């Protein structure tokens, strides 16, 4: 089971504890998380289900390569971190 962990900054807006999900790709992992937490999807993906511009996803320490379709492969014990870029203001 891959573990998906979300940035702590999201906790201001909604509950999104780490989840262990069976998934072969990043897209599959997110779909499984969103199936139980539909509101969370809109914080990570835009209207067209694209990864939001300032969201970054790391798999086992490596930033995902396919931001459009999120096809990066997961290992059974992968650690997926969904993070945000920093900004000022």
């Amino acid at each position, binding site marked *: 089971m891959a573990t998906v962990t979300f940035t702590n900054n999201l906790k201001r807006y909604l509950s999104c504890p780490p989840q262990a999900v069976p998934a072969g790709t990043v897209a599959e992992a997110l779909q499984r998380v969103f199936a139980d937490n539909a509101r969370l999807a809109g914080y990570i993906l835009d*209207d067209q289900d694209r990864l939001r511009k300032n969201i970054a996803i790391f798999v086992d320490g490596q930033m995902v390569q396919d931001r459009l379709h999120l096809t990066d492969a997961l290992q059974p014990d992968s650690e997926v971190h969904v993070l945000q870029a920093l900004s000022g203001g």
Partner: protein
Amino acid sequence: MNQKLRIGTRKGLFVYERTGKGQWRCGVPDFLGDPVSMVLRDPRNGNKYTALNLGHFGVKLHRAESGSREWTEIDAPKFPKSGDEDGPAVDLIWELVPGGADQPDTLWAGTIPGGLFKSTDRGESWTLIEPLWNRPERANWFGGGYDKPGIHSICVHPNNTRCVRLAISCGGVWESQDAGDTWTQTGQGLRAAFLPPDQAYNPVSQDPHRMVSCPASPDHMWIQHHNGIFRSDDGGHRWTEITDVPPSVFGFAVAVHPQDPNTAWFAPAIKDERRVPVDGKLIINRTRDGGKSFTALSNGLPQGPAYDLTYRHSLDVDDSGDILAFGSTTGGLWVSEDQGDHWQCLSEHLPPIYVVRFDKHF
């Protein structure tokens, strides 16, 4: 019931309550730290709405039931999936208005990029008004200030709620007489000095910064345009430009008296790269004769140096037509209880103000 004034800022929602003549009290802010792009209290049921632009996390919409401050996130307007890699996504909720009294659950939302959305269930779900989105003229819309065009002004005719008029920066003025099923470009007479001379009156390329309609006489409308001040007495079909309004015809905001269509207020600034008050003196301009003459109102406002700019949604008048408020990009908030003759500063230290709205009761 005490009058309430909702202030949407870059750092949260602030609500001021009038507790007596000249007495205003600010409550604890909601959404502190989050950019608030639009606010609405629905006069038909007292429900309140706050639109957020969370940047990294997208556009969100929250609702609080009448009498409650408990906010619940509801679905925000969203474009349908297009299958294209560059398909549209909502960047900002720029306008939010109730439908008519005969449509108690209907809301309209205007967004960047240029989408008009309708909800018939108090914001639980939203539908893109595709007949407007699919108009071929949309190819000629363009951004003004923002990278993409946006719908910032929606006027629902109070006596014929199938009549909806709206304004787009930059895409001119549009009207539907059938609740959004078909659309007509109106706006004859609007003039854009920023276009080539032979295109100056092309209605599709106009940049109305803000359009308002007099509630008691809805066919009487005002526009604060990029290029100046315009008025219409036929529901926005034809517009008359009002020139020579000192200190400047440039600005973003306009408010119209709810009963008297000849009385309107404007927040002038230097056109157009500088966008600060003329000579550093903050004023509000008022006409009471339909634009034949204007009075610069400055009593109680900083007369320099002041660099406060008032955005398009940051000037409002209450139901009575007597109480006005406006806010600035530098966090100044002023109210007047005598149609602008005298002003009092409620705060010089709010975050940059995006929207100022009185709670309306009809």
